[in-house]
């Protein structure tokens, strides 16, 4: 059972209070009508799916219902940090490879 920290509610809570929402920091193309099929397909479907540290979205569905980003190891579930969407998109984006 993962213990997850909601950065809005400021509490460590159990996994069952949250919903998973996949890889974080995927930018939606600003001009969907103009992008190629390849770029649109990449945005919709292709994922990093790393074996290791993963930046991912969770929603506090049983609580504040906001989305946030955590960095978690997909190998041993160590959680390295919990960030609001705003923090994630400004601070983490620069480190994202």
């Amino acid at each position, binding site marked *: 059972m993962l213990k997850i920290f909601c950065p809005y509610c400021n509490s460590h809570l159990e996994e*069952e209070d949250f919903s*998973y929402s996949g890889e974080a920091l995927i930018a939606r193309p600003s001009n969907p009508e103009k992008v190629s*099929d390849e770029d649109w397909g990449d945005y919709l479907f292709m994922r990093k799916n790393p074996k290791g540290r993963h930046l991912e979205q969770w929603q506090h569905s049983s609580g504040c219902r906001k989305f946030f980003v955590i960095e978690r190891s997909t190998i041993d579930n160590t959680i390295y940090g919990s960030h609001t969407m705003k923090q994630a998109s400004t601070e983490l984006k620069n480190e994202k490879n």
Partner: protein
Amino acid sequence: MKYSLLSLFKQGLKNNQDWPQAWSSPKIKHKYDVIIIGGGGHGLATAYYLAKEYGIKNIAVLEKGYIGGGNTARNTTIVRSNYLWDESAMLYQHSLDLWGGLSQDINYNVMFSPRGVYNLGHTLQEMRDIERRVNANVINGITAEVVLAEEIKRRIPLINISKNVRYPIMGASYQSTGGVARHDAVAWGFARAAAALGVDIIEQCEVTGMDIQNSTIAGVNTTKGYIGANQVGCVAAGHSSVLASMAKIRLPIESHPLQAFVSEPMKAVLDTVVMSNAVHGYISQSDKGDLVIGAGIDSYNSYSQRGSPHVIEHTAAAILELFPAFSRARMNRQWGGIVDTTPDACPIISKTNVKGLYFNCGWGTGGFKATPGSGHVFADTLANDSPHKLAIPFSIDRFYTGHLIDEHGAAGVAH
């Protein structure tokens, strides 16, 4: 050595001390015609069919752990072909056709038992979906029929068709030609048969990098050194993205835990397979007597081969609503695998933009049933450097054209 009544007798006279090894640990060659990365059921089946039907001599299967130790060891052994769309249904039916003669073909008892599979419907919409799926199957010549609750109860005495539950059973689709098989035996059987045809099975050999020159595969770096190859087929299930990134290829795959558990062995109480989407879980009873139970994936990405306990609780609750008699059964063992799920719950069998590099992955929660079919179709694709006709709809291109093949309903495992 051929397994037979005669060899059983002769070996028995020697007190069973003289059975030859089912496969050996050969010295790794510097270069192979074909390297298969992934020594699970699909990879070993691919190697076998490549050697048997296409006469390719110089094949290696590289497995980072022990063969069949990944998802092949961790599934709930269900075999069926009752999928909705023509493309997928024909692929799974091809596999089901191969299951029938597999033990004879590879001279190894894979214990394929066509004891039937029920997919239960608990709501009006589910029954409509079931009718649609059964009709689609029948049109495609695939065995399927609709059964209603009373008939299900007559055939499965322990099942609960009471109306006093949250989602009462209304009926089910029934595929009499589906059933179960012994997962380990499939891996070992294909390994033995492939080895007998000259395939090198290399265990404890993890691929750490790919050597690509001028958009063409030249070989792989492994924990046991560099190995050259003309063709490389990746069949590594949950680790497909790891391999793909070595070739700078992106896949529409997410790796999730899929948990399962078994009870203590008991007398025969369930002689068929029962699956429910609404009350989510699926169950059968192995020939050893244990109830084999599974349900949906854990929601988060993971390579840990374990999941969260609440998933097990929900699974048990679902099974007990269907089979109240099992409430006292003690569970013996619980584990998880790494399932490579795709957006449309259908596999990816594809060439890539690297010449000589192919991927067979994305079988997600439903790979075991496809083991022989997947291997056969992928072997054909490798041998001809062109997708087998059953594989064409499952090219990675469908994620760019938008022609997804949505089998979430028939997949029977919540994503």
